[in-house]
């Protein structure tokens, strides 16, 4: 039984620039008792989620929409338990796979095969599990010989295929995908769709952030819209 429950969640995060990351500035600030805090306050705080509440249960497939900078990626990271809110409660139950940044968990110098094992193990599988799933991953990615060359030679579409194949092969209970999913070609999107339908049917939670209404309608059953960190649920055809 997987679930994600957000109860009145507010998330604020600091943006550090080079001045605020510097130890010298910090020491000067301590040393002068905050006298020059005027020009050392370079930490900009952003309120990315503002009193967000919802609960997702098995079988929920959510489309996350909102303009650039509305907080979609931050929302996915909070759902994955990566970002911790400053107030409110986040309760996540179930194993999580994410596809947020292209290339996360991949070592560009290593081959596709090596990276499949590495990423799968980071997602909580054993080496033996990953070797058993290799056929399935090989077939899904259709990368053939490319799996034995270093990942740095891959195009973004190829990297996407590899990441998606591994992230779904571990059978996560919660799958969180950011918009760069659309880097894949038509053939890949068709295959990915099958996999995701399968995932949703086996009553798992799926959240997909995208700007493309087409893709959202194809994959999702409910739609959340984020605006300035506030969340509202809208109808599937209302955007």
């Amino acid at each position, binding site marked *: 039984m997987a679930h994600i429950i957000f109860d009145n969640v507010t998330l604020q995060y600091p943006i550090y620039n080079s001045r605020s*990351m510097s130890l010298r500035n910090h020491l000067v600030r301590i040393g002068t008792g905050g006298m020059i805090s005027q020009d050392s306050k370079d930490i900009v705080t952003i309120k990315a989620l503002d009193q967000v509440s919802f609960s997702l249960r098995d079988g929920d497939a959510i489309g996350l929409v909102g303009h650039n900078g509305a907080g979609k990626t931050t929302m996915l990271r909070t759902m994955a338990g*990566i970002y911790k809110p400053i107030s409110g409660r986040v309760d996540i139950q179930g194993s999580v796979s994410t596809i947020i940044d292209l290339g996360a968990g991949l070592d560009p110098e*290593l081959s596709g095969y090596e990276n499949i094992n590495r990423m799968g193990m980071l997602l909580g599988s054993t080496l033996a599990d990953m070797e058993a799933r290799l056929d399935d991953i090989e077939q899904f990615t259709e990368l053939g010989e490319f799996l034995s060359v270093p990942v740095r030679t891959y195009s973004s579409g190829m990297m996407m295929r590899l990441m998606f194949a591994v992230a779904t092969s571990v059978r996560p209970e919660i799958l969180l995908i950011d918009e760069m999913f659309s880097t894949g070609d038509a053939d890949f999107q068709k295959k990915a769709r099958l996999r995701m339908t399968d995932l949703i049917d086996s009553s798992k939670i799926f959240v997909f952030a995208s700007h493309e209404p087409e893709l959202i309608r194809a994959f999702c059953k409910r739609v959340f819209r984020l605006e300035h960190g506030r969340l509202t649920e809208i109808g599937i055809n209302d955007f």
Partner: protein
Amino acid sequence: MFAYALSDLKRTMAMLPVAYYLARSDLKARYRRSMLGPLWLVLGTAVGVTGLGILWSVLLHENRATFIPSLTVGLVVWQLISGTVIESTRTFSNNYLLIRNLAIPFGFYPLQLIMRQVVNFAHNALVILAVLLIYPPHWSAVQWLCLPGFLLVLGNLYWIALMLGMMGARFRDLENLIAAFMPLLFFLTPVIYRPEQLGFKSLFAWLNPFSYLISVIRDPLQGHVPAPFVWEGAIILLVFGWLSSLYLLQTRHGRVAFWV
């Protein structure tokens, strides 16, 4: 009190095989297109030890049979220590993609660093073995004491890596600060010499925590039982180091993902 920090470490320990696998494949990636591969590590250490051993034994008027083994063990352990300390400030910032994509326990990243250093150390240990065969110490059961000594060193390096990793993610100057002071620390730490050689000034050597970490491995390998205060020093360092590291992890774990 340390509820989060302890659960983080518990989940980290479950990932031990993953850390080992990653350390091995990192090493493979590093020597991908080289013919000797990781043997370069061994060769580099062997060359360094031979050169420095001959040069310094002449300069310092030391007996080679005792000086070279002492220097070799000192250098190899120092490589383990300094390699960990220097890289530790970047542990979290280098893994920013992973940290921002998966909720992996934070203890995992320094563990991976320690693993990588241990794999390097295991290669360099071949040089120690060779030197000890050429200049044999008095072999006895005392040599086994280097194993608990080694574990004490690893336990200490782990908290150091965790703490410096978190601080380095927040304060980017730390990396350069540490890189600037490590060479000096090399001479302040009894690597080339032994603390006793400083005479009554040896007290200063024992103010340096790294002296304890070198001695708990070097003394037993050379056939001496380390003095009780050496063990005590290393254990006190371990306990207080872990308490402060756990405190940092407990209070700041929610911030790390924003720092990197």
